[in-house]
């Protein structure tokens, strides 16, 4: 009975953390909406320079990684440890691919001398400077979350192999899954706001 309550407590804590994360990104969304309202044309122009096909591809990768995560957890609960590990590995691979694509997108922009405070960018309209400032900080913060998620999932994989996460105590795995889905949800909002406005 006590153990049962601990599980509820652990999950409640995870949900509270998720809500606080939503508010963290929410603050940035408020900034975005105000600046976009003030500089509609520059946002329109600057967003047109982002690579929409790569952004779409990344959305598909992250959504698919959410699927493999959910399937990994349900297989684990059903006692199919091996297939659970395979799906966890797929999640890691998809998450890593997401980061790799994001890396190339950033490198391409930086190669064209568009990064916060770059002379090339400062020559442009103020709205475009703000757009790229928000682009780098919001996608950067999100990429940091993906990176943390990957490390957490990797640790979960090791714990599963070692048997520390097992059919009786799978709450850490479930909570890591919740975190991974949160990262997916944040991207679901970032994608249209940065890539799909023209």
């Amino acid at each position, binding site marked *: 009975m006590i153990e049962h309550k601990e599980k509820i407590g652990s999950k409640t804590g995870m949900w509270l953390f998720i809500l606080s994360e939503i508010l963290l990104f929410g603050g940035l969304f*408020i900034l975005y909406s105000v600046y976009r309202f003030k500089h509609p044309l520059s946002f329109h122009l600057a967003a047109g320079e982002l690579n929409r096909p790569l952004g779409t591809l990344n959305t598909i990768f992250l959504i698919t990684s959410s699927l493999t995560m959910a*399937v990994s957890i349900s297989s684990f*609960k059903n006692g199919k440890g091996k297939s659970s590990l395979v799906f966890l590995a797929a999640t890691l691979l998809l998450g890593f691919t997401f980061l790799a694509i994001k890396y190339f997108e950033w490198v391409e922009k930086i190669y064209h001398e568009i990064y916060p405070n770059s002379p090339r960018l400062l020559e442009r309209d103020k709205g475009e400077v703000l757009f790229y400032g928000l682009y780098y900080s919001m996608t950067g913060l999100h990429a940091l979350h993906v990176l943390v998620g990957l490390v957490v999932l990797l640790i979960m994989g090791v714990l599963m192999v070692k048997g520390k996460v097992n059919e009786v105590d799978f709450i850490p795995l479930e909570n890591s899954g919740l975190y991974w889905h949160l990262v997916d949800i944040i991207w679901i909002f970032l994608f249209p706001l940065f890539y799909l406005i023209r």
Partner: protein
Amino acid sequence: MANEGSSSPISEKIYFLVWLELLLLTGATVSIAGMNLGRWGICIALLIAGIKSGLVLSYFMHLKYEKQLRLFKWMVPGVLVLLILFIGLTFFDVVLR
């Protein structure tokens, strides 16, 4: 025993269907963005993003099936309403200044 407590099991078929819906919605939002609907474009994009996150929250994150954490079913929309309120109030200031 394994499923006791936390949440009722969801079949993998449902996960797969939710994934398909998410992909279809992504396709829809990308193709609608290509139409240049102007001001309506952003409304539709946000609406689709809202539906997508609702799907992830209800099915992948099990909120729909959660029996003990019933409070969170209300807290997630609560936080979203709070955010919309913040954005609304901010615009009240920005527009009328």
